[in-house]
Structures are given as structure tokens and as C-alpha cells.
């Protein structure tokens, strides 16, 4: 009897741990219905860096997307507006142009899973891959497996440390350093170039975080020496973490007059923390963030966030257009940089339709 009880306890501990990891990862999110035509991505530059790429150069077989199996490897759970809009956009566009079969995998923030996801899709006969890399390093085995099968890989939103037109076809995405610089410009504008600012960093070891930080810090140093960066802490791109880090910052740096959040979710967490502490976000403490989610732009309308630099997640139309061009014999530049919008008090209300 005792032994049985102990077995059961053991099993329930296991199940509980499993359950808590499952639950712990899923966050409540406001439903966002992506508007398909509004807010479509616009190419800014067909970019410097890296050669252009043609079908012959990559050595890929010719393909009609309507008869093709296309694979999409998403990096993180669709638990935040960016990822929801990104996956949705790929699925919508695949349906629109009539791709024979679209395979969708999700690496759940685990790099080893992303590698196996890509290998699984190759084993299932994927002929063209769209990959949203979780990390800039470490996907080499997956890229090699794709290259061995002559399957072109288009990376979107994050770049991998590899050679375009050799290890992968091309990169589509935003310039994250530029986003950081524009956030700094917006911050200088709303603060008048004076004050004490805290940075809520994204996940560490991530090039998005590094770029958005460097862009911001460099621009502030160059343009507004009166704006002092007094703290930098990671909020891991999540609302909860952004909120708890902000709570600590309020008590350790009560003199703060501004916050730069490297994504909207952390900014929204910071707004909650500031409100709880009896401060007036958007007025006592100015907030600038990056992403352009509907909730954050609504917060500009409500006056709790001051400015948001967009990072457009709707990669579907541009990704499939790039694929079609590629198979039509057009040469594809290694870096396709998209142009991102900017939201502030002046345009937030009218721009709500193009947010995600």
C-alpha cells in the first residue's frame, strides 16, 4: 500500500512539474485580429551587404509554388502579438496564392527543436523553407540539411550568422539598430533631451536585444548628452517580467523620468508597474518602445505611452513574393530591409487600423 502511494506521489509530482511548465509558458493575451491589407510591409532597401542571388547561383531546382510543399518554422510560441501576426500572415498568404501544402512548426523557444523541426519538414518533402530563426547562431545543421536537398531557405525577422546565397537564400526583416536609433530620436523629442532613462532589455544573448540597445545608446550619447542612462535590466521581452523589473527600478531609481522598452509587451508591463506605484506613465515617466502592437498604440491614444517604433511582422506577402520572384529568375538581394512606421500622439489614433 505504501509503495503504491509512493508511486502515485511520484507520478503526480512528474505530472505537476510537466503541467506547471506547460502552464507557466502560456500567457493570457488579448485577441488581436490581424487586418490583412492594412499595414503591409514595404521594402526600404534591397540592401547593402551580401551579393544578389539567382536560381542558378543557389543551384535550386525550378519550382511552381502552386505545386510545392512549403515549410514555415516559427521560433517562439504564438503567445505575443508579433508572433501571432507573423504566423497568421504566412498562413494567409500561402492560402491566397494557393500553395499546395504549407507545413507549420513551432520551436517553442528551443533551438534544438527548431533544428529538428526543419529536418522533419525536409523529411516530409518541403521544397521551400521560410524560417524565423530563434537565434543568430546554431542553425547550421538545419541549413546544411536544406542545402544538401537543394531546398532554398528564406530567413525572416532575425538574421543568421551565415552567408546569403550560399547557406541560405536571403534575409527579410527590419534593421534593429535603426529601430534603436529611431527610438532614441523619439525619446529625445518627448523628454527634450534631458532626464534619467532606464532601458528594459530584451532576452540576453539575442541579436535583436543587442542591436536595439546599441542603436539607442549610441544615438543618445551622440545627440543628447543630457539624457543619462541610469539602468539597464532584462525584461526578457515579456509583460510580466517587464512589470516586475519596472517595480524594482522604481524603488532603486525613484528619480527615473523615462523608460525605453525594447518591445511593447515590456512597455505595457512598465505602465502597469508605474500606475501601481502611484506614478503617471506617459507624463512623469515618458515611455518609448518598439513593435507597434495594437495595445501599445492604443496606450499612446490613452496617453500612457509616448511613442512606438514599428517592427512589422506581416512577412507573408513579401516572403512569398520574394519566392515567386526567385523562381521567375529575378535576382534576390541578400538583405531585404523593410521600412517601419513610427507612432506618436499625433498619428496614433488614425493608425490603429495598421497595427497588429
Amino acid at each position, binding site marked *: 500500500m505504501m509503495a503504491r502511494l509512493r508511486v502515485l506521489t511520484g507520478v503526480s509530482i*512528474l*505530472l505537476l512539474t510537466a503541467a506547471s511548465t506547460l502552464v507557466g509558458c502560456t500567457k493570457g493575451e488579448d485577441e488581436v485580429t490581424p487586418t490583412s491589407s492594412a499595414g503591409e510591409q514595404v521594402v526600404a532597401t534591397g540592401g547593402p551587404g551580401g551579393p544578389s542571388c539567382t536560381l542558378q547561383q543557389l543551384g535550386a531546382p525550378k519550382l511552381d509554388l502552386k505545386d510545392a510543399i512549403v515549410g514555415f518554422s516559427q521560433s517562439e*510560441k504564438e503567445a505575443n502579438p508579433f508572433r501571432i501576426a507573423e504566423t497568421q500572415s504566412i498562413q494567409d498568404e500561402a492560402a491566397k496564392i494557393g500553395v499546395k501544402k504549407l507545413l507549420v512548426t513551432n520551436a*517553442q523557444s528551443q533551438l534544438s527543436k527548431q533544428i*529538428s*523541426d526543419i529536418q*522533419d519538414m525536409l*523529411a516530409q518533402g518541403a521544397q521551400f523553407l521560410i524560417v524565423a530563426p530563434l537565434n543568430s547562431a*546554431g542553425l547550421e545543421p538545419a541549413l546544411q540539411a536544406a542545402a544538401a536537398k537543394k531546398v532554398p531557405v528564406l530567413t525572416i525577422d532575425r538574421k543568421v550568422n551565415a552567408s546569403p546565397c550560399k547557406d541560405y537564400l536571403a534575409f527579410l526583416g527590419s534593421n534593429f539598430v535603426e529601430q534603436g536609433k529611431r527610438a532614441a530620436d523619439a525619446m529625445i523629442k518627448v523628454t527634450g533631451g534631458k532626464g534619467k532613462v532606464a532601458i528594459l532589455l530584451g532576452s540576453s544573448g539575442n541579436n535583436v536585444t*543587442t542591436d536595439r540597445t546599441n542603436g539607442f545608446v549610441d544615438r543618445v550619447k551622440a545627440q543628447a548628452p543630457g539624457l543619462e542612462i541610469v539602468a539597464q535590466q532584462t525584461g526578457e521581452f515579456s509583460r510580466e517580467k517587464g512589470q516586475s523589473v519596472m517595480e524594482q527600478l522604481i524603488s532603486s531609481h525613484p528619480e527615473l523620468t523615462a523608460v525605453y522598452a525594447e518591445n511593447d509587451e515590456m512597455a505595457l508591463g512598465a505602465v502597469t508597474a508605474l500606475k501601481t506605484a502611484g506614478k503617471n506613465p506617459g507624463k512623469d515617466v515618458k515611455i518609448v518602445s518598439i513593435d507597434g502592437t495594437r495595445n501599445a498604440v492604443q496606450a499612446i491614444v490613452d496617453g500612457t505611452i509616448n511613442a512606438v517604433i514599428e517592427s512589422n511582422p506581416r512577412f507573408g506577402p513579401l516572403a512569398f513574393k520574394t519566392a515567386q520572384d526567385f523562381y521567375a529568375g529575378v535576382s534576390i538581394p541578400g538583405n531585404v530591409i523593410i521600412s517601419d512606421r513610427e507612432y506618436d500622439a499625433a498619428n496614433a489614433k488614425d493608425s490603429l487600423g495598421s497595427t497588429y
Partner: protein
Amino acid sequence: MTVPADAVSGRRELVAGFVQRHGALAVLALSVVTASLVFESFASFDNASGIAIQSSFLVIVAIGMTFVIICGGIDLSVGSVFALGGVLAAYASRWGTLPALVVPLAVCGAIGLLNGVLIARLRLAPFIVTLASLLGARGLLLSITDEGASTYLVPRESSFVEIGRGTLWGLGYPVFLALALAALAGLVLQRSRFGQSIFAIGGSQDAAAMMGVPVARMKVLTYTLSGLLAGLAGTLNAARLGSGVTILGVGLELDAIAAVVIGGTLLIGGAGTISGTLSGVLLLGVIQNVINQIGNLGSSYQLVTSGAFLAVVVVVQTYLSRTQRLH
């Protein structure tokens, strides 16, 4: 009348006993057959070799975990140690292949040794000690990578990469290494004094001590082994990736524990097999693969599906082990 009844229940007990001990194998076989029938791309050599290479690293980690759990303990540090091993290997690969193997093994073995000493000599709870080293190893990793901002690359011409990427008969070297280690571990567990001591300690530590088993020494050895194996898996993985990725291994300890328990090893210690663990790891790999075969499942439902699948497997095994024990 009693004779046939006994014979029936005897046979039933035999079958139940076999299925309980090899429950994971039975479920694995069932899953593979079902998946092959449902998804035409499942039963290809490409897909099978993919699952094999993906599982090989977890197999190596789970072997160490099997020893630890049979011994009545738990090792939560393996995920962080795995990641640390990979980063150290990538860092040391600039000096050649041998340092790339030795440095991570030395550091990870030392972490395991420290775990073992704290648990066996100071009699601290394994859960807390290894939780502390989970955090410590991750912290060490962050400190040598500038808070995770720099990723060390293995030099492209280094022969170290070959260890992770080379193939024989279409299967990656890590697959063969994992199988060899599993076979060796199975022998050690069943046939050596060390193996038998671990079973005795896991069954009843006091009884084992009275029988003259050097309990503390065996425990230290077990945790050191677990640290070494986690470090080795991380090293091989770094060779395969060609870089010391800093974000790896989060939650890997739970995968390893799950695989071990699915494989029929009791979480309370004293019973378990390496072959079961092998089936457990492969089962996790197959579940993942099947979810990808479905092809268009939302990320939340992927988690629900794999959670539900795990729950079913464990319930079936608990039920089988109960019928056996009741008799």
C-alpha cells in the same frame, strides 16, 4: 478450480510485468506503427535518421539521470550543465580538438562531483543542491559569454566539428556514441558492483549501508557521472552546431526526467533500466515528430498534445504496475 485461475493470473502477471518493464517499448512500437500508417512520410529512412540524431543528445543526458533516479536522487542541473559544456567546448575548440573535449568534461564533471559531495557527505536534499547548480552553471555560462551576448564559434576547419556532423551509413556519429554508451551503462547497471550498489541504495539506503555498501562514495560517483554525461552531450551538440549557443538546455532536465520515468524507472528509486530510458527518449522524439507530421497545429495545441500523450503513457504504466503489485 483454483489451479486454472492461478495459471491465468500468473500468466497475466507475467504479461503485465513484461509490459510494465517494457511499457515504453510497447507504446513506442504502437506509436511508430500507427504513425507509419497515418503519415506516408513518417516511415522513411530520412525521417528515422532525423529522429535518431535529435534524440542522441538526450539519450546521453538521460543515461546519467537514470543512474541518479535509481539511486533515489534527482539531478536538475543537467540542462544548464549541458549548455555550459557546449559553450566551453566551442570556446576551447580554438586550441584544438582535445581541449574542446577535455575542458567541458573537466568542468562539468567537477560540477557533478560538487553536487555529489554536497548531497552524500553533507546530506543535503538533491532537489535543492542540483537546483542551486542549475542556477550556478547557467550563471557561469552567462559570465563567460558577456551575459550571453557573445557566441563562440568552432573554427570551420577544426576536426572537432566532424565528431558532431560526421555520418556512417547515413547516421550521425552521436547516434553510435549514444548507443554505445547506453549499452555500456546497461552492463554497468546490471552486472557491476557499482550498479547493484545503486539499486540497493535506491531501494533502502539504511539497508544498503548495513550490508556494507559505501553509500556516500557511490552517490558521489553517480552525480559525477551525471555531470560528465550532460557535459559530454553538450560538447557533442556544440560540435554539431559549430558554435556554443547560449540559449540551449532550458528545461532539458525535465525532458530527461520524463524520458527516464516513461522508461519505467521509479521516481522514488530502486528500480529501472537503461533500455527503458532509451525507449522513453525515442518516444518523446516520436511524439514531437508526429506533431510536426500533422503539420499545421497551433503552438498551444502542440503543447496540449504532447502533454496529453505523456499523461496517457504514465497512466497506462501506473495502472499496469498496480495490477502487478496488488497480486
